[in-house]
């Protein structure tokens, strides 16, 4: 993974001191709440229902064991012994004290981590494919480009006071695992006819109140030009994006109002002006970053021990089938650590678990940990002969719930329990779903359930196969269902099932939906396929006919 040089370290250290000073001035009255708010947000600090919330960046979801140990230590010293992994591959602390945040940032800086631009109306953490570098279908490893764009966007003087937040995702495979279509800018790595590396650029996608699927603004931008092209898009957005209404301020609204063709013409005119040498990426500069992402030192290995282990243990077999995936290197597997055990809220990991994860990563996985947008972790390089022993240790630590991709592997925001924006709770509903379906999650099959506590849609409900959105109706919590959304290759927004459901009926409703699916599916047919074949009506009848 990328390692800071002295330059990067100095910048992050100076940022910590800058924020320490800003916090002190706020606490002593030198900055008003209005003046401090954008400054703290640009350091990931929210003021929440119970306490501040600090969001820490995990650039493109990549962590070292050393960094995980630091997160553990921070959770013990400054928080309540756990952390929460988010849908944008980041991690959050739910209980830090404002006065302590500068110290937390200093501790993070000591392991090359920061919270710069993890919130605020600026360019956020760059997200990517959690299988980058290890999947067989990759065109090019996106991570060096993620790092280059991370550096370009970090403390960008021109783009720190945008109309609204700005999210960029990059995918290096034909199969998009980074939901690039639902980002302000999505970059898909491409090769042109001559074999040159570049990007297809999508613009104007986004979730939230007005979910919109991004559109292609450029079929191919050469790698040398990608920063100047991004700069052109950002400048057009910064100048013309709406600032009068924060719900209409994202670039998706601007692109829609302007029209893609006109917007594209504006970007290209701007691009012609900003193709300066300073933004040109030469091969040498790219290679320097690529050198940090060389292939791991894989050893030759065959699957004979694995075959034996699989034959001997049914439980291991189930876990292997559901929670591990093919690796491009023979003799290796990609392992998902489920953060959706019945014992805690989705995405939460305890102090003890963090330390176990760090040790296992050192022992089996070259010290590397990845985060995913569905709030799990990945060990990307596990030798098949180590799988059984790894599984046993994960199992002991409640990290091996056999549910990856199933109904209980749901995405869920913190909801009303922690978030000041939320209209409804999500954690207790998640618990209800887990309790009801844990025993037959595998039989139900792969169904993506995503649940957000408000329209902001942090849990991506609009692209869940089953999407649940918490709404407030005269002080009561209600839940709006959508069916048939998709976050895979071709993103699709779910269709509304019908009127909102009362809180106590939410789990029953999920059950009814799954009943219809089970009743109508042909063999191994996926939920989406069944839904497409039979339409939404049978689901409506079952849910609303019964209640």
């Amino acid at each position, binding site marked *: 993974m990328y390692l800071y040089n002295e*330059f990067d370290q*100095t*910048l992050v250290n*100076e*940022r910590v*001191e*800058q924020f320490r000073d*800003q916090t002190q001035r706020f606490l002593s009255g030198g*900055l008003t709440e209005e*003046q401090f708010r*954008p*400054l703290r947000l640009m350091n990931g600090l929210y003021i929440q229902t119970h306490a501040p919330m600090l969001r820490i960046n995990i650039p493109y979801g990549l962590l070292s064991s050393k960094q995980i140990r630091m997160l553990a230590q921070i959770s013990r010293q400054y928080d309540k012994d756990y952390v929460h992994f988010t849908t944008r591959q980041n991690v959050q602390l739910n209980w830090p004290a404002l006065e302590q945040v500068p110290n937390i940032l200093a501790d993070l800086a000591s392991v090359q981590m920061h919270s710069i631009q993890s919130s605020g*109306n600026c360019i956020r953490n760059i997200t990517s494919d959690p299988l980058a570098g290890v999947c067989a279908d990759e065109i090019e490893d996106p991570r060096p480009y993620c790092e280059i764009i991370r*550096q*370009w966007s*970090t*403390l*960008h*003087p*021109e*783009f*720190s*006071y*945008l*109309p609204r937040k700005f999210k960029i995702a990059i995918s290096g495979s034909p199969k998009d695992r980074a939901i690039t279509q639902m980002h302000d800018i999505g970059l898909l790595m491409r090769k042109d006819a001559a074999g040159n590396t570049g990007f297809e650029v999508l613009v104007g996608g986004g979730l939230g109140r007005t979910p919109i699927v991004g559109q292609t603004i450029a079929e191919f931008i050469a790698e040398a030009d990608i920063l100047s092209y991004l700069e052109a898009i950002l*400048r057009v957005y*910064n*100048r013309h994006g709406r*600032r009068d209404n924060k719900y209409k301020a994202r670039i998706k609204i601007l692109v829609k109002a302007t029209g893609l063709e006109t917007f594209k013409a504006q970007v290209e005119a701007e691009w012609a*002006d*900003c193709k*300066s040498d*300073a933004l040109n990426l030469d091969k040498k500069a790219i290679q320097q970053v690529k050198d940090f992402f060389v292939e791991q030192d894989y050893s030759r290995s065959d699957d004979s021990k694995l075959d034996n282990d699989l034959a001997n243990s049914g439980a291991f077999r189930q876990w292997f089938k559901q929670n591990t995936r093919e690796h491009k290197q023979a003799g290796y597997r990609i392992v998902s650590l489920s953060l959706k055990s019945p014992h805690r809220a989705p995405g939460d990991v305890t102090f003890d678990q963090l330390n176990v994860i760090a040790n296992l990563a050192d022992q089996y996985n070259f010290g590397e940990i990845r985060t995913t947008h569905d709030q799990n972790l990945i060990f990307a390089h596990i030798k098949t002969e180590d799988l059984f022993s790894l599984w046993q240790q994960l199992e002991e630590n409640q990290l091996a719930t056999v549910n990856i991709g199933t109904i209980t592997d749901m995405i869920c925001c913190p909801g009303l329990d922690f978030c000041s924006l939320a209209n409804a709770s999500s954690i207790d509903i998640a618990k209800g779903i887990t309790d009801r379906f844990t025993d037959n999650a595998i039989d139900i099959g792969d169904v993506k359930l995503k649940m957000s506590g408000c329209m902001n849609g942090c849990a991506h409900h609009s692209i869940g196969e089953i999407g649940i959105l918490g709404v407030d109706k005269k002080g009561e919590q209600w839940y709006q269902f959508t069916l048939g959304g998709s976050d895979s290759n071709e993103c699709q927004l779910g269709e509304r099932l019908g009127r909102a459901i009362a809180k106590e009926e939410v789990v029953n409703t999920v059950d009814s939906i799954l009943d219809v699916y089970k009743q109508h599916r042909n063999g191994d047919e996926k939920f989406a396929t069944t839904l497409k074949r039979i339409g939404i009506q049978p689901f409506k009848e079952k849910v609303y006919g019964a209640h």
Partner: protein
Amino acid sequence: MALIKNNNAQADNWQYLTEDSPELSQNSIVSLEYWQQNKTSLTQQETLGLRVLGDTDPSEFVNELARFDIIAIEIPIFTDGRAYSLAKTLREKYEYTGEMRAIGDVQPDQALYLTRVGFNSLELASDELRELALEKLAAFSVFYQTATKTN
């Protein structure tokens, strides 16, 4: 008002032409509207400044950009980032080399970013804020982005 120019505290020789001080002089900064209405008579001026808003379209005045010794760009509230892109565009695309001044809601915490995109003068509300802004201009010794040239 307290001025920083080229990273130093400086006295301000310019004056805004307003209803309260309508006397045109060689040190006047006029509004875009005033300039557009009085272009002919203003050709007499040896030196002249122009005041625009952060969201002003540069096409409104760039044709005669070289005519101005100072462009003052007004930031209505510090979270409105349009002035940054306007400043950068004037410097890089239109190669403006005169003084470019940030006015309005200019706070010490934004001073450094403003100077990185091409502003070379900043108008702070008080001497105290100016002192703080001068300190904050030195908050970072490294940058991932190149600075916009101011001349």
